[in-house]
Protein backbone atom coordinates (compact mmCIF):
# COMPACT_ATOMS: atom_id res chain seq x y z
CA UNK A 1 0.00 0.00 0.00
CA UNK A 2 1.24 3.52 -0.76
CA UNK A 3 2.11 5.46 2.35
CA UNK A 4 0.85 9.05 2.19
CA UNK A 5 3.16 11.90 3.14
CA UNK A 6 2.73 15.37 4.62
CA UNK A 7 4.74 18.34 3.34
CA UNK A 8 6.64 20.67 5.66
CA UNK A 9 4.81 23.94 4.99
CA UNK A 10 7.01 25.95 7.35
CA UNK A 11 9.26 25.20 10.30
CA UNK A 12 7.54 27.03 13.12
CA UNK A 13 7.90 24.76 16.13
CA UNK A 14 11.17 23.18 17.21
CA UNK A 15 10.86 20.32 19.70
CA UNK A 16 13.93 19.03 21.47
CA UNK A 17 13.77 15.71 23.28
CA UNK A 18 16.41 16.71 25.79
CA UNK A 19 16.25 13.60 27.96
CA UNK A 20 15.24 11.09 25.31
CA UNK A 21 13.03 8.54 27.03
CA UNK A 22 14.68 8.86 30.40
CA UNK A 23 12.06 9.58 33.06
CA UNK A 24 11.65 9.09 36.80
CA UNK A 25 8.05 7.87 36.29
CA UNK A 26 6.67 4.92 34.33
CA UNK A 27 3.20 6.09 33.31
CA UNK A 28 0.99 3.35 31.91
CA UNK A 29 -0.02 5.42 28.85
CA UNK A 30 3.37 6.95 28.01
CA UNK A 31 3.52 7.46 24.26
CA UNK A 32 7.24 6.80 24.04
CA UNK A 33 7.53 4.26 26.87
CA UNK A 34 9.78 6.48 28.96
CA UNK A 35 11.07 5.24 32.27
CA UNK A 36 14.00 5.23 34.70
CA UNK A 37 15.84 2.14 33.42
CA UNK A 38 17.66 1.64 30.13
CA UNK A 39 15.91 4.38 28.14
CA UNK A 40 15.69 3.31 24.51
CA UNK A 41 16.43 6.88 23.43
CA UNK A 42 19.32 8.66 25.14
CA UNK A 43 19.54 12.24 26.43
CA UNK A 44 21.04 14.89 24.19
CA UNK A 45 24.37 16.53 24.96
CA UNK A 46 24.15 20.15 26.03
CA UNK A 47 26.19 21.22 23.00
CA UNK A 48 23.89 19.38 20.64
CA UNK A 49 20.83 21.16 22.07
CA UNK A 50 22.53 24.55 21.80
CA UNK A 51 23.50 23.83 18.18
CA UNK A 52 19.91 22.89 17.36
CA UNK A 53 18.58 26.12 18.87
CA UNK A 54 21.11 28.10 16.87
CA UNK A 55 20.07 26.38 13.65
CA UNK A 56 16.40 26.90 14.51
CA UNK A 57 17.04 30.62 14.97
CA UNK A 58 18.73 30.83 11.57
CA UNK A 59 15.69 29.16 10.04
CA UNK A 60 13.27 31.60 11.70
CA UNK A 61 11.40 29.34 14.12
CA UNK A 62 8.59 30.70 16.28
CA UNK A 63 8.86 28.58 19.42
CA UNK A 64 10.83 25.90 21.25
CA UNK A 65 9.57 22.94 23.29
CA UNK A 66 11.65 20.78 25.65
CA UNK A 67 10.38 17.31 26.26
CA UNK A 68 11.56 13.80 27.06
CA UNK A 69 11.33 11.68 29.16
CA UNK A 70 11.47 14.13 32.01
CA UNK A 71 13.38 17.29 31.00
CA UNK A 72 14.28 18.22 34.57
CA UNK A 73 16.47 15.12 34.76
CA UNK A 74 18.87 16.80 32.31
CA UNK A 75 21.83 18.08 34.28
CA UNK A 76 21.88 21.34 32.32
CA UNK A 77 18.15 21.95 31.92
CA UNK A 78 18.26 25.43 33.46
CA UNK A 79 21.21 26.47 31.31
CA UNK A 80 19.42 25.08 28.25
CA UNK A 81 16.25 26.96 29.18
CA UNK A 82 18.27 30.16 29.37
CA UNK A 83 19.68 29.48 25.90
CA UNK A 84 16.25 28.75 24.45
CA UNK A 85 14.73 31.87 25.97
CA UNK A 86 17.39 34.01 24.34
CA UNK A 87 16.01 32.90 20.98
CA UNK A 88 12.29 32.18 21.27
CA UNK A 89 9.36 31.54 23.60
CA UNK A 90 9.94 28.21 25.30
CA UNK A 91 7.76 25.52 26.81
CA UNK A 92 8.90 22.68 29.07
CA UNK A 93 6.75 19.56 29.32
CA UNK A 94 7.26 17.98 32.73
CA UNK A 95 5.69 15.71 35.30
CA UNK A 96 6.51 18.38 37.87
CA UNK A 97 7.95 15.97 40.42
CA UNK A 98 11.46 17.49 40.29
CA UNK A 99 10.45 21.15 40.53
CA UNK A 100 11.80 22.18 43.91
CA UNK A 101 11.61 25.68 45.40
CA UNK A 102 15.14 26.29 44.15
CA UNK A 103 14.33 25.17 40.60
CA UNK A 104 11.18 27.31 40.61
CA UNK A 105 13.19 30.33 41.78
CA UNK A 106 15.60 29.83 38.92
CA UNK A 107 12.81 29.39 36.35
CA UNK A 108 11.10 32.55 37.60
CA UNK A 109 14.34 34.47 37.19
CA UNK A 110 14.81 33.16 33.65
CA UNK A 111 11.23 34.07 32.76
CA UNK A 112 11.65 37.54 34.21
CA UNK A 113 14.85 38.20 32.26
CA UNK A 114 13.57 37.10 28.85
CA UNK A 115 11.36 39.11 26.51
CA UNK A 116 9.71 35.81 25.58
CA UNK A 117 7.21 33.71 27.51
CA UNK A 118 8.31 30.65 29.43
CA UNK A 119 5.56 28.04 29.73
CA UNK A 120 5.75 25.10 32.12
CA UNK A 121 3.32 22.29 31.37
CA UNK A 122 2.62 19.92 34.25
CA UNK A 123 1.05 16.54 33.51
CA UNK A 124 -1.81 15.31 35.68
CA UNK A 125 -4.30 12.72 34.45
CA UNK A 126 -7.11 12.91 36.97
CA UNK A 127 -8.31 15.25 39.70
CA UNK A 128 -8.57 12.24 42.00
CA UNK A 129 -5.12 11.48 43.49
CA UNK A 130 -5.71 7.73 43.60
CA UNK A 131 -6.87 7.48 40.01
CA UNK A 132 -4.06 9.73 38.84
CA UNK A 133 -1.42 7.72 40.66
CA UNK A 134 -2.79 4.47 39.24
CA UNK A 135 -1.67 5.84 35.85
CA UNK A 136 1.33 7.93 36.81
CA UNK A 137 2.76 6.18 39.87
CA UNK A 138 2.53 6.49 43.63
CA UNK A 139 2.94 10.06 44.89
CA UNK A 140 2.91 11.62 41.41
CA UNK A 141 -0.26 13.60 42.10
CA UNK A 142 0.89 15.33 45.28
CA UNK A 143 4.26 16.22 43.76
CA UNK A 144 2.64 17.67 40.64
CA UNK A 145 0.23 19.71 42.76
CA UNK A 146 3.12 21.05 44.77
CA UNK A 147 4.87 22.02 41.53
CA UNK A 148 1.78 23.95 40.43
CA UNK A 149 1.80 25.80 43.73
CA UNK A 150 5.50 26.67 43.81
CA UNK A 151 5.38 27.92 40.23
CA UNK A 152 2.20 29.90 40.82
CA UNK A 153 3.63 31.52 43.94
CA UNK A 154 6.51 32.85 41.83
CA UNK A 155 4.25 34.41 39.22
CA UNK A 156 4.70 31.64 36.67
CA UNK A 157 1.41 30.37 35.26
CA UNK A 158 1.74 26.62 34.75
CA UNK A 159 -0.47 24.82 32.24
CA UNK A 160 -2.01 21.57 33.48
CA UNK A 161 -1.83 18.96 30.73
CA UNK A 162 -4.11 15.95 30.94
CA UNK A 163 -4.74 13.03 28.63
CA UNK A 164 -8.16 11.48 28.20
CA UNK A 165 -6.90 8.15 29.58
CA UNK A 166 -9.47 8.16 32.40
CA UNK A 167 -12.28 9.92 30.55
CA UNK A 168 -14.50 6.82 30.65
CA UNK A 169 -14.35 6.80 34.43
CA UNK A 170 -15.77 10.30 34.78
CA UNK A 171 -19.03 10.44 36.73
CA UNK A 172 -21.99 10.93 34.41
CA UNK A 173 -22.61 14.55 33.47
CA UNK A 174 -19.17 15.58 34.64
CA UNK A 175 -16.86 17.41 32.24
CA UNK A 176 -13.14 16.77 32.35
CA UNK A 177 -12.36 20.39 31.51
CA UNK A 178 -14.58 21.73 34.30
CA UNK A 179 -13.17 19.23 36.81
CA UNK A 180 -9.61 20.32 36.15
CA UNK A 181 -10.58 23.97 36.16
CA UNK A 182 -12.21 23.54 39.57
CA UNK A 183 -9.19 21.67 40.91
CA UNK A 184 -6.80 24.41 39.82
CA UNK A 185 -9.02 27.17 41.21
CA UNK A 186 -9.28 25.26 44.52
CA UNK A 187 -5.49 25.54 44.84
CA UNK A 188 -5.82 29.32 44.88
CA UNK A 189 -4.56 29.60 41.30
CA UNK A 190 -6.77 32.33 39.90
CA UNK A 191 -5.64 32.05 36.29
CA UNK A 192 -6.35 28.40 35.49
CA UNK A 193 -4.69 27.11 32.33
CA UNK A 194 -5.01 23.63 30.90
CA UNK A 195 -4.67 21.48 27.86
CA UNK A 196 -6.42 18.17 27.27
CA UNK A 197 -5.00 15.66 24.81
CA UNK A 198 -6.20 12.38 23.35
CA UNK A 199 -4.43 9.10 24.08
CA UNK A 200 -2.32 7.72 21.25
CA UNK A 201 -2.01 4.06 20.31
CA UNK A 202 1.74 4.10 20.64
CA UNK A 203 4.39 3.42 23.24
CA UNK A 204 2.83 1.62 26.23
CA UNK A 205 -0.57 1.96 24.56
CA UNK A 206 0.59 0.41 21.29
CA UNK A 207 -2.17 -1.88 20.13
CA UNK A 208 -2.37 -4.66 17.60
CA UNK A 209 -2.12 -2.22 14.74
CA UNK A 210 -5.16 -0.37 13.52
CA UNK A 211 -6.35 1.71 10.62
CA UNK A 212 -3.76 3.67 8.67
CA UNK A 213 -4.09 6.78 6.53
CA UNK A 214 -4.46 6.28 2.80
CA UNK A 215 -3.69 8.71 -0.03
CA UNK A 216 -7.43 8.83 -0.77
CA UNK A 217 -8.19 10.07 2.76
CA UNK A 218 -5.76 12.94 2.22
CA UNK A 219 -7.14 13.99 -1.14
CA UNK A 220 -7.97 17.69 -0.76
CA UNK A 221 -7.00 17.63 2.94
CA UNK A 222 -5.62 20.80 4.52
CA UNK A 223 -2.15 19.66 5.65
CA UNK A 224 -1.73 22.71 7.85
CA UNK A 225 -4.05 20.89 10.30
CA UNK A 226 -1.32 18.32 10.96
CA UNK A 227 1.42 19.39 13.34
CA UNK A 228 4.06 17.60 11.26
CA UNK A 229 3.46 20.28 8.57
CA UNK A 230 5.12 22.89 10.80
CA UNK A 231 7.17 20.92 13.31
CA UNK A 232 10.45 19.07 13.54
CA UNK A 233 11.92 17.26 16.53
CA UNK A 234 15.56 16.91 17.45
CA UNK A 235 16.21 13.72 19.41
CA UNK A 236 18.95 11.14 19.67
CA UNK A 237 19.83 9.94 16.17
CA UNK A 238 18.66 12.95 14.21
CA UNK A 239 15.63 14.99 13.27
CA UNK A 240 12.14 13.48 13.31
CA UNK A 241 8.72 14.42 11.98
CA UNK A 242 6.74 14.98 15.17
CA UNK A 243 6.95 14.62 18.96
CA UNK A 244 4.75 11.51 19.00
CA UNK A 245 7.02 9.59 16.61
CA UNK A 246 10.39 10.99 17.72
CA UNK A 247 13.06 8.31 17.80
CA UNK A 248 11.28 5.89 15.46
CA UNK A 249 13.32 5.03 12.35
CA UNK A 250 10.53 5.60 9.86
CA UNK A 251 9.88 9.10 11.24
CA UNK A 252 13.53 10.10 10.95
CA UNK A 253 14.10 12.68 8.22
CA UNK A 254 17.71 13.62 8.76
CA UNK A 255 20.67 12.37 10.73
CA UNK A 256 22.15 15.81 11.16
CA UNK A 257 20.61 19.18 10.49
CA UNK A 258 17.14 20.63 10.69
CA UNK A 259 17.56 22.02 7.23
CA UNK A 260 18.04 18.52 5.83
CA UNK A 261 14.74 17.53 7.43
CA UNK A 262 12.84 20.01 5.24
CA UNK A 263 11.09 17.28 3.32
CA UNK A 264 7.77 15.44 3.44
CA UNK A 265 7.29 12.88 6.20
CA UNK A 266 5.57 9.52 6.02
CA UNK A 267 2.14 9.35 7.66
CA UNK A 268 2.74 5.71 8.37
CA UNK A 269 1.58 5.14 11.93
CA UNK A 270 -1.83 4.57 13.50
CA UNK A 271 -0.99 7.61 15.67
CA UNK A 272 -1.16 9.70 12.47
CA UNK A 273 -4.83 8.75 12.24
CA UNK A 274 -5.44 10.31 15.66
CA UNK A 275 -3.93 13.63 14.54
CA UNK A 276 -5.87 13.44 11.26
CA UNK A 277 -9.16 12.78 13.01
CA UNK A 278 -8.85 15.07 16.02
CA UNK A 279 -6.78 17.93 14.56
CA UNK A 280 -4.84 17.85 17.81
CA UNK A 281 -1.45 19.41 18.32
CA UNK A 282 1.09 18.88 21.07
CA UNK A 283 1.60 22.68 21.17
CA UNK A 284 0.14 24.78 23.98
Amino acid at each position, binding site marked *: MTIPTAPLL*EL*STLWIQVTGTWCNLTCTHCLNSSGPHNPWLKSLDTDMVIRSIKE*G*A*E*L*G*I*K*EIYYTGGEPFLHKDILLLTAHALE*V*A*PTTILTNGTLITDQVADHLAEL*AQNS*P*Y*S*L*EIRISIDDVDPEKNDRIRGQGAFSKAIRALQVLHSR*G*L*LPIVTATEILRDELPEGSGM*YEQFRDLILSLGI*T*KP*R*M*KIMPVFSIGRMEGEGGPLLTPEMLDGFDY*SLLQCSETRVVAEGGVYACPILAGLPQARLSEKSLKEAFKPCDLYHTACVTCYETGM*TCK*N
Partner: protein
Amino acid sequence: MKPMDSQLSTLNSEPKEYRRIAVCGGIYNNYLALEAALEDIRRREVEAVFCLGDMGAFGPHPDRIFPLLDEGKVLAIQGNYDQSLAIGLDNCHCGYTDPRDNYFAQLSYEYTFRKTSHENKAWLGKLPTHRRVKLGQYRVLMCHGSPRRINEFLWESTSPNCLLEKFCRDFETDILLCTHTGIKWHRALNGCGHIINVGTIGRPENDGQVHVWYTLLTAGDDLQVEFIPVHYDHKTLAQEMEQEDLPLEFIETIRTGWWTTCLEILPAKERARGKY
Protein backbone atom coordinates in the same frame (compact mmCIF):
# COMPACT_ATOMS: atom_id res chain seq x y z
CA MET B 1 -27.08 50.13 2.85
CA LYS B 2 -25.17 49.99 -0.39
CA PRO B 3 -21.69 48.48 -0.62
CA MET B 4 -18.81 50.92 -0.63
CA ASP B 5 -17.70 50.59 -4.20
CA SER B 6 -15.72 53.82 -4.01
CA GLN B 7 -13.29 52.04 -1.68
CA LEU B 8 -13.14 48.80 -3.57
CA SER B 9 -11.83 50.58 -6.64
CA THR B 10 -8.64 51.55 -4.78
CA LEU B 11 -7.68 48.04 -3.71
CA ASN B 12 -5.60 46.92 -6.63
CA SER B 13 -3.74 50.12 -7.39
CA GLU B 14 0.06 50.51 -7.13
CA PRO B 15 1.48 51.08 -3.63
CA LYS B 16 0.81 54.68 -2.77
CA GLU B 17 3.28 56.76 -0.86
CA TYR B 18 2.31 58.52 2.34
CA ARG B 19 4.07 60.47 5.08
CA ARG B 20 1.59 60.00 7.89
CA ILE B 21 -1.09 57.37 8.32
CA ALA B 22 -3.44 56.09 11.02
CA VAL B 23 -3.96 52.34 11.39
CA CYS B 24 -6.49 50.56 13.52
CA GLY B 25 -7.34 46.92 14.05
CA GLY B 26 -10.17 44.79 15.42
CA ILE B 27 -13.30 46.92 15.54
CA TYR B 28 -15.42 44.08 16.97
CA ASN B 29 -18.72 45.91 16.33
CA ASN B 30 -17.63 48.75 18.65
CA TYR B 31 -19.08 51.55 16.55
CA LEU B 32 -18.86 54.09 19.37
CA ALA B 33 -15.10 53.58 19.71
CA LEU B 34 -14.71 53.67 15.91
CA GLU B 35 -16.61 56.96 15.77
CA ALA B 36 -14.43 58.45 18.52
CA ALA B 37 -11.24 57.17 16.88
CA LEU B 38 -12.15 58.63 13.49
CA GLU B 39 -12.95 61.95 15.10
CA ASP B 40 -9.57 61.94 16.82
CA ILE B 41 -7.81 60.93 13.60
CA ARG B 42 -9.42 63.82 11.69
CA ARG B 43 -7.62 66.28 13.96
CA ARG B 44 -4.21 64.72 13.31
CA GLU B 45 -3.68 65.52 9.65
CA VAL B 46 -3.15 62.04 8.35
CA GLU B 47 -3.19 61.23 4.65
CA ALA B 48 -5.01 57.92 4.97
CA VAL B 49 -6.71 55.68 7.51
CA PHE B 50 -6.35 51.91 7.40
CA CYS B 51 -8.09 49.09 9.24
CA LEU B 52 -6.51 45.65 9.53
CA GLY B 53 -9.76 43.70 9.79
CA ASP B 54 -12.12 41.91 12.17
CA MET B 55 -14.99 44.36 11.89
CA GLY B 56 -17.29 42.04 13.81
CA ALA B 57 -17.34 40.18 17.18
CA PHE B 58 -17.98 40.96 20.79
CA GLY B 59 -20.02 44.20 20.61
CA PRO B 60 -23.57 45.17 19.56
CA HIS B 61 -25.21 46.15 16.26
CA PRO B 62 -22.64 45.01 13.66
CA ASP B 63 -24.12 46.99 10.79
CA ARG B 64 -23.45 50.32 12.48
CA ILE B 65 -19.74 50.31 11.74
CA PHE B 66 -20.04 50.13 7.94
CA PRO B 67 -21.34 53.68 7.30
CA LEU B 68 -18.58 54.98 9.59
CA LEU B 69 -15.90 53.13 7.62
CA ASP B 70 -17.36 54.61 4.45
CA GLU B 71 -17.59 58.17 5.71
CA GLY B 72 -14.11 57.97 7.20
CA LYS B 73 -12.69 56.64 3.90
CA VAL B 74 -11.11 53.81 5.86
CA LEU B 75 -9.07 51.47 3.68
CA ALA B 76 -9.65 48.02 5.10
CA ILE B 77 -8.26 44.54 4.74
CA GLN B 78 -9.92 41.29 5.71
CA GLY B 79 -9.58 39.64 9.09
CA ASN B 80 -10.46 36.03 9.80
CA TYR B 81 -13.83 37.14 11.16
CA ASP B 82 -14.63 39.04 7.98
CA GLN B 83 -13.63 36.06 5.89
CA SER B 84 -15.83 33.71 7.91
CA LEU B 85 -18.84 36.06 7.71
CA ALA B 86 -18.36 36.62 3.99
CA ILE B 87 -18.26 32.98 3.02
CA GLY B 88 -20.75 31.80 5.61
CA LEU B 89 -18.50 29.59 7.72
CA ASP B 90 -19.94 28.20 10.94
CA ASN B 91 -17.36 29.82 13.22
CA CYS B 92 -14.96 32.74 13.33
CA HIS B 93 -11.75 30.73 12.82
CA CYS B 94 -10.02 32.93 15.37
CA GLY B 95 -7.58 30.12 16.06
CA TYR B 96 -8.51 29.38 19.67
CA THR B 97 -7.64 25.94 21.01
CA ASP B 98 -9.40 25.98 24.35
CA PRO B 99 -13.06 24.96 24.87
CA ARG B 100 -13.89 28.02 26.99
CA ASP B 101 -12.36 30.40 24.44
CA ASN B 102 -14.29 28.68 21.67
CA TYR B 103 -17.55 28.74 23.62
CA PHE B 104 -17.51 32.53 23.97
CA ALA B 105 -16.17 33.11 20.47
CA GLN B 106 -19.09 31.10 19.11
CA LEU B 107 -21.67 33.20 20.99
CA SER B 108 -20.38 36.44 19.51
CA TYR B 109 -19.94 34.93 16.05
CA GLU B 110 -23.52 33.66 15.88
CA TYR B 111 -24.85 37.03 17.05
CA THR B 112 -22.71 38.94 14.55
CA PHE B 113 -23.55 36.56 11.71
CA ARG B 114 -27.28 36.95 12.38
CA LYS B 115 -27.10 40.73 12.61
CA THR B 116 -24.80 41.57 9.69
CA SER B 117 -26.63 42.40 6.48
CA HIS B 118 -26.11 40.42 3.34
CA GLU B 119 -24.69 43.49 1.58
CA ASN B 120 -22.14 44.12 4.29
CA LYS B 121 -21.04 40.48 4.31
CA ALA B 122 -20.57 40.69 0.57
CA TRP B 123 -18.48 43.84 0.99
CA LEU B 124 -16.26 42.09 3.56
CA GLY B 125 -15.78 39.30 1.06
CA LYS B 126 -14.31 41.70 -1.48
CA LEU B 127 -11.66 43.14 0.81
CA PRO B 128 -8.03 42.15 0.16
CA THR B 129 -6.15 40.10 2.73
CA HIS B 130 -2.99 42.24 2.53
CA ARG B 131 -2.07 45.74 1.50
CA ARG B 132 1.23 47.31 0.57
CA VAL B 133 1.97 51.04 0.78
CA LYS B 134 5.07 53.21 1.04
CA LEU B 135 5.57 55.36 4.10
CA GLY B 136 8.37 57.74 3.23
CA GLN B 137 11.33 55.49 2.42
CA TYR B 138 9.76 52.46 4.11
CA ARG B 139 7.95 49.58 2.43
CA VAL B 140 4.90 48.72 4.52
CA LEU B 141 3.04 45.41 4.51
CA MET B 142 -0.33 45.24 6.25
CA CYS B 143 -1.89 41.96 7.30
CA HIS B 144 -4.39 40.78 9.87
CA GLY B 145 -2.72 37.99 11.89
CA SER B 146 0.63 37.43 10.24
CA PRO B 147 1.76 37.69 6.64
CA ARG B 148 1.62 33.90 6.31
CA ARG B 149 -1.66 33.17 8.08
CA ILE B 150 -4.71 35.34 8.63
CA ASN B 151 -5.38 33.95 12.12
CA GLU B 152 -1.83 33.60 13.45
CA PHE B 153 -1.36 35.31 16.81
CA LEU B 154 1.66 37.61 16.99
CA TRP B 155 1.88 38.40 20.70
CA GLU B 156 4.81 40.43 21.90
CA SER B 157 6.13 37.60 24.09
CA THR B 158 5.76 34.85 21.48
CA SER B 159 7.12 36.62 18.41
CA PRO B 160 10.87 36.03 18.42
CA ASN B 161 13.18 38.29 16.48
CA CYS B 162 14.35 35.39 14.30
CA LEU B 163 10.77 34.89 13.05
CA LEU B 164 10.09 38.59 12.53
CA GLU B 165 13.33 39.05 10.62
CA LYS B 166 12.31 36.12 8.43
CA PHE B 167 8.95 37.75 7.77
CA CYS B 168 10.62 41.00 6.72
CA ARG B 169 12.99 39.09 4.42
CA ASP B 170 10.47 36.68 2.92
CA PHE B 171 7.75 39.27 2.41
CA GLU B 172 10.13 42.05 1.35
CA THR B 173 9.01 44.72 3.75
CA ASP B 174 10.54 47.22 6.16
CA ILE B 175 7.45 47.63 8.31
CA LEU B 176 5.01 44.86 9.11
CA LEU B 177 1.63 45.89 10.56
CA CYS B 178 -0.73 43.37 12.18
CA THR B 179 -3.53 43.09 14.75
CA HIS B 180 -5.59 39.96 15.74
CA THR B 181 -4.30 39.57 19.30
CA GLY B 182 -5.95 42.65 20.80
CA ILE B 183 -2.82 44.00 22.48
CA LYS B 184 -0.55 46.53 20.81
CA TRP B 185 3.26 46.44 20.68
CA HIS B 186 6.14 47.70 18.59
CA ARG B 187 9.60 46.23 18.10
CA ALA B 188 12.39 47.75 16.05
CA LEU B 189 14.51 44.91 14.75
CA ASN B 190 18.23 45.30 14.70
CA GLY B 191 18.61 47.51 11.65
CA CYS B 192 16.19 45.58 9.47
CA GLY B 193 12.64 46.49 10.16
CA HIS B 194 9.77 47.33 12.45
CA ILE B 195 6.95 45.09 13.57
CA ILE B 196 3.91 46.87 14.91
CA ASN B 197 0.83 45.22 16.28
CA VAL B 198 -1.54 48.18 16.05
CA GLY B 199 -3.86 46.93 18.80
CA THR B 200 -7.64 47.05 18.52
CA ILE B 201 -10.31 49.65 18.95
CA GLY B 202 -12.96 47.01 19.65
CA ARG B 203 -12.10 46.22 23.24
CA PRO B 204 -9.67 47.48 25.88
CA GLU B 205 -6.40 45.65 26.24
CA ASN B 206 -6.65 43.81 29.56
CA ASP B 207 -4.93 46.41 31.72
CA GLY B 208 -7.86 47.70 33.77
CA GLN B 209 -8.26 50.78 31.56
CA VAL B 210 -11.47 51.20 29.57
CA HIS B 211 -10.03 53.09 26.62
CA VAL B 212 -8.88 51.48 23.38
CA TRP B 213 -6.01 52.19 20.99
CA TYR B 214 -5.05 52.93 17.41
CA THR B 215 -1.65 53.68 15.89
CA LEU B 216 -0.20 56.72 14.12
CA LEU B 217 2.81 56.23 11.87
CA THR B 218 4.89 59.12 10.59
CA ALA B 219 7.88 58.80 8.26
CA GLY B 220 10.75 61.22 8.73
CA ASP B 221 14.44 60.56 9.15
CA ASP B 222 13.23 57.82 11.46
CA LEU B 223 9.92 56.07 11.77
CA GLN B 224 7.71 57.58 14.43
CA VAL B 225 5.25 55.17 16.03
CA GLU B 226 2.60 56.58 18.37
CA PHE B 227 -0.07 54.55 20.12
CA ILE B 228 -3.09 56.80 20.60
CA PRO B 229 -5.61 56.08 23.37
CA VAL B 230 -9.26 56.53 22.41
CA HIS B 231 -11.78 57.37 25.10
CA TYR B 232 -15.34 56.71 24.06
CA ASP B 233 -18.77 56.27 25.61
CA HIS B 234 -18.11 52.77 26.90
CA LYS B 235 -21.02 52.96 29.35
CA THR B 236 -23.52 53.36 26.52
CA LEU B 237 -21.88 50.52 24.63
CA ALA B 238 -22.19 48.29 27.71
CA GLN B 239 -25.88 49.22 28.07
CA GLU B 240 -26.54 48.37 24.45
CA MET B 241 -24.74 45.04 24.88
CA GLU B 242 -27.07 44.31 27.80
CA GLN B 243 -30.10 45.19 25.70
CA GLU B 244 -28.85 42.82 23.00
CA ASP B 245 -28.45 40.02 25.58
CA LEU B 246 -24.76 39.67 24.89
CA PRO B 247 -22.83 37.70 27.55
CA LEU B 248 -22.25 39.45 30.88
CA GLU B 249 -18.59 38.49 30.59
CA PHE B 250 -18.21 40.68 27.48
CA ILE B 251 -19.97 43.58 29.15
CA GLU B 252 -17.71 43.35 32.19
CA THR B 253 -14.68 43.73 29.92
CA ILE B 254 -16.07 46.92 28.39
CA ARG B 255 -16.87 48.32 31.85
CA THR B 256 -13.63 47.35 33.60
CA GLY B 257 -10.92 46.99 30.99
CA TRP B 258 -10.12 43.43 32.12
CA TRP B 259 -10.55 40.49 29.76
CA THR B 260 -12.87 37.81 31.07
CA THR B 261 -12.93 35.59 27.97
CA CYS B 262 -10.55 34.50 25.23
CA LEU B 263 -7.97 34.31 27.98
CA GLU B 264 -6.62 30.84 27.40
CA ILE B 265 -4.89 31.83 24.19
CA LEU B 266 -2.80 34.42 26.08
CA PRO B 267 0.87 33.48 26.56
CA ALA B 268 2.25 33.47 30.10
CA LYS B 269 3.59 37.03 30.10
CA GLU B 270 0.45 38.61 28.68
CA ARG B 271 -1.81 36.49 30.88
CA ALA B 272 0.13 37.44 34.00
CA ARG B 273 -0.60 41.14 33.44
CA GLY B 274 -4.39 40.69 33.47
CA LYS B 275 -6.79 40.19 36.34
CA TYR B 276 -8.16 36.78 35.27
